[in-house]
């Protein structure tokens, strides 16, 4: 583990992070490298501009939201532990990692993942995706060929599909249910979750 380990020892709180997020040391080291690579001018933390340099993100219609998700409200800097914590959302769900009713859920649990996505859409953080928020996303995602009227009906339709309590907005619960339903693969989905 020679070189790897020496790097690992340089990372502050690596052990705690691993414990918390379930990353292996190798993962942590790699993430740290990536973190440092992103941090272009070596200031020790990341800021939104650093993320903007990632090509894949720049292409994304909701890139600003994704970047925003890394920065908790109001903050402009991101340190390594938070970086890792956010990325832990993307670890695959551990099938045989048991549920612990007493402790908070693992970051990479299904519902936390969903919550993460949900927050990308829920811009005003009121726990609901409103029609306006949907429209914003649709506008960025679709080309000009689609008329505003169609956009609105798409948004209405989306809400109508997911909305269970008829409040014209998608709450997290509804969002979750929505995503548990996989079109034409429903049986498989249910079996795995």
């Amino acid at each position, binding site marked *: 583990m020679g070189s790897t*380990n020496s790097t690992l020892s340089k990372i502050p709180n690596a*052990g705690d992070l691993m414990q918390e997020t*379930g990353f292996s040391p*190798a993962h942590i080291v790699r993430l740290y490298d990536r973190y440092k690579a992103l941090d272009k001018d070596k200031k020790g933390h990341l800021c939104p501009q650093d993320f903007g340099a990632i090509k894949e993100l720049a*292409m994304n219609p909701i890139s600003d939201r994704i970047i925003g998700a890394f920065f908790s409200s109001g903050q402009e800097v991101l340190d390594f532990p938070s970086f890792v914590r956010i990325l832990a959302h993307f670890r695959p769900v*551990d099938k045989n990692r048991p549920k612990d009713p007493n402790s908070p*859920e693992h970051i990479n649990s299904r519902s936390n993942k969903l919550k993460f996505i949900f927050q990308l*859409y829920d811009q005003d953080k009121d726990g609901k995706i409103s029609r306006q928020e949907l429209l914003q996303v649709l506008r960025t995602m679709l080309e000009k060929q689609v008329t505003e009227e169609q956009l609105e009906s798409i948004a209405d339709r989306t809400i109508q599909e997911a909305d269970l309590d008829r409040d014209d907005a998608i709450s*997290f619960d509804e969002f979750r249910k929505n995503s*548990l339903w996989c079109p034409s693969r429903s049986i498989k989905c249910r079996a795995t979750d």
Partner: protein
Amino acid sequence: MPKNSDIARKLEEVGIEIDGEVDSAQENSTPKNKGGKRTATEKRGKAAASEDGEDEDEDDEPLRGRRAANRRKVAQNETLEEDSDDDIPPRRCAGNRRRGKPGGSAAESGGGGKPNKRNKRGGKKQKEDKVKGKQDEKSKNSSEDSKSERGGEEEESMSEGERAQLMEEVEEKKKLIANIRNKPWRMKRRLKHLKEAQLFVDKFEGALGKGKGRKLYAYKVMMMKKWIKFQRDFENFKTACIPWERKIKEVESHFGSSVASYFIFLRWMYGMNLVLFSLTFGLVVIPELLMGLPYGSIPRKTVPRAEQATAMDYSVLTDFNGYCKYSALFYGYYNNQRTVGFLKFRLPLSYLMVGIGTFGYSLMVVIRTMAKNADVGGGDGEDNEFTFAWKMFTSWDYLIGNAETADNKYASITTSFKESIVDEQENQKDENVHLRRFLRVLANLLITCTLGGSGYLIYFVVKRSQEFANMDNLSWYEKNELEIIMSLLGLVGPMLFETIAELEDYHPRIALKWQLGRIFALFLGNLYTFLLALFDEVNAKLEEEKSIKNASIWFMQEYHANYTANNPNDTGTPPPIDPSDVIRGPCWETTVGIEFVKLTISDIQVTYLTILIGDFLRALIVRFLNYCWCWDLEAGWPSYGEFDISGNVLGLVFNQGMIWMGAFYAPGLVGINVLRLLTSMYYQCWAVMACNVPHERVFKASKSNNFYMGLLLLILFLSLLPVVYTIMSLPPSFDCGPFSGKERMFDVITETIDLDLPAFMGTLFSYAANPGLIIPAILLMVLAIYYLNAVSEGYKNANMELKKKMQMARDEEKNRRNNKDSTNQVLKDLEDLLPNRSNLPQKPEERKAPKVKPGAAGKGINVQKDVSLALANPNTRGLMTQAPGPKPVGCLPGNAGPGHKGAAPPPSH
């Protein structure tokens, strides 16, 4: 010791999977711990006296364990610093968590060692089984302990504490496997757990072995990872190998799946033609060129002297006369030598076999593709519940890092939304049903009339042209009447149909199918006239040939008579005539071949020119004249062209029909077709991207383009008929082609059977050809088809029934949810389960259920409501009233996880 740590390191480096597992194993212990603790305390409260002995055990064990752990730790610190780095954090954390727990017994709160956990897990196990007596439990505990004790000693220097836990896990799973029979579970669940446990044991037993086993395990894991990676790479490679995938995807993203379906069809066609091409060229053309007699050696391979002067002229060559006609492209060039070259390649036989094989292969491929598509088509219902929501939240591909790809993705998202909108519009359209029906009937009536009229027109014109054929001094119109009428029909018909189809107002996808079917019917008339004309020609040629044959036979006899009269000693030398001077028959096969090749070529020209003028030029004009025109050309009348799916598909299908019919008489035709398909792929892709605009209503093509395939199959069958007819009943030309000199073409087969196969094979074949055998065989096949059809019908019905049921269940569920404003997934799941299990006694799931209920925090009332609903079955009452057992422990509101786990908690956790 260093060796062991090495392995550990290897394991570490090898990867994520192991890490994950080990981690999870480590994590596993904590919840069990807690569960165990709870039961342990309860137990103690209930019957302290009887538990004393056990408690002592428990107290004792952890001490020993801790000591062992300490000892181990020291050793590790001394010898392996690297290792401890990895080792300590989890252990420390585990310790922390344990310490943080309130309400544990002294021994528990102090315990840091692993054996402690084990005991607790025992407790938990007991809680789960309940059927087992305490005696049982105790013995289990002790056996487990002793085992792990041994394990602990053995491992001593082993890298992680996790190993011990892993060991326990494996032990536990093994135990589970052993007594799964006794568990009061449903069979399904038992099987599931059994399978899981076996998998687990298989996976980790190796990791716990000593020395070699461990290494082997590490190696296995490494290989597994490599294999997975290889598989992934291979998949990527396979995708990269699909020709034109990128092009088609690009078209699809801009024009929708309907246009893409044409290109996919084109690609499929190219693949099939490539096989036909390799068959024909590999087994017929190339052997003849390599091993057959060279050009100019015999009359059929030589241009006649009369034509030699112009044989190289461009105009002659483009008509496929001159050197083209006497080349390996056409039937007439082939020699009737039984074998060619040193390989004794039986060329005539091969020629016939390839001719038949072309059809056989095509039939097989078309039908197989259809069957496969039908399979795909059956799988995806139109039952997508959350179409828009899914598109909305999941359509972006987060791996896209290329600006162009991103553009395509934007386009494709837009297109797919549009497609969904069209589908949706169609679903919601329910105005005047009667009017719609009336209009549709009317439209079909009109179209039937049109088709009938055009059919009669064709028949009439053909009749007239046959009359004209016998007359002289015709006007230009009378000469070309047939062609003019046919092309007019081909031009007007589709437009007329399209106009009439507006009446019907079908979904564009269905409208396309109707349109295709109708134009197909119209074009069949085209085919009919063409074939009729061809047969007339063939018959004329046959007559002509008969006279020439007689003449040439007479000539030969004369010559021989003279020759033998002059030199009585010598017989059998051929007359010393240059091959180009020999009198020869018209060779109708080559004529037919030339007709087909010409037709194909002109078809290619027309198609390409249409694209160039109708699309490209139009686009240019619209684009650039728009700057100086009085109205907006782009939005107004000419506008840009749309991609004509029906026309293109039909063009492709009919072209393929020509190829199938002509390939027997012109082996080179397949090569031409391959080139055509190849160029048209690039050309049309370019044209569609450069000069067309997407359809006004972009619609989603049906996943299986079985309709295209159906048309193709029909055409294949139709083109099979004339070819088989000529092979079976027309005599081949006497002086050209591989079958010359034979009565019928298929005589090659009988000849081969007689000459090359042993005698008994001949008799065998003659028996097989006996009508007494063939008729029963056909009957049997018909019966088999009937039976299989009935079976598939039955399956289809069952399938539909199930689909309906699923849909109903889902609707019901949705309604219920909507009505009651309840969103508790767990309860829903439970409700679904209840009626099935009502006859079973207490089950762990049910007991666990109340615990998760509060998962949807603050919905207590709803919970009650749901429960009462579930109580419809009186048997379940016992279950549910027992509910408020363990208290609701802080689940996060809306946690999906515990809810779902709660519905079916695996005992291993």
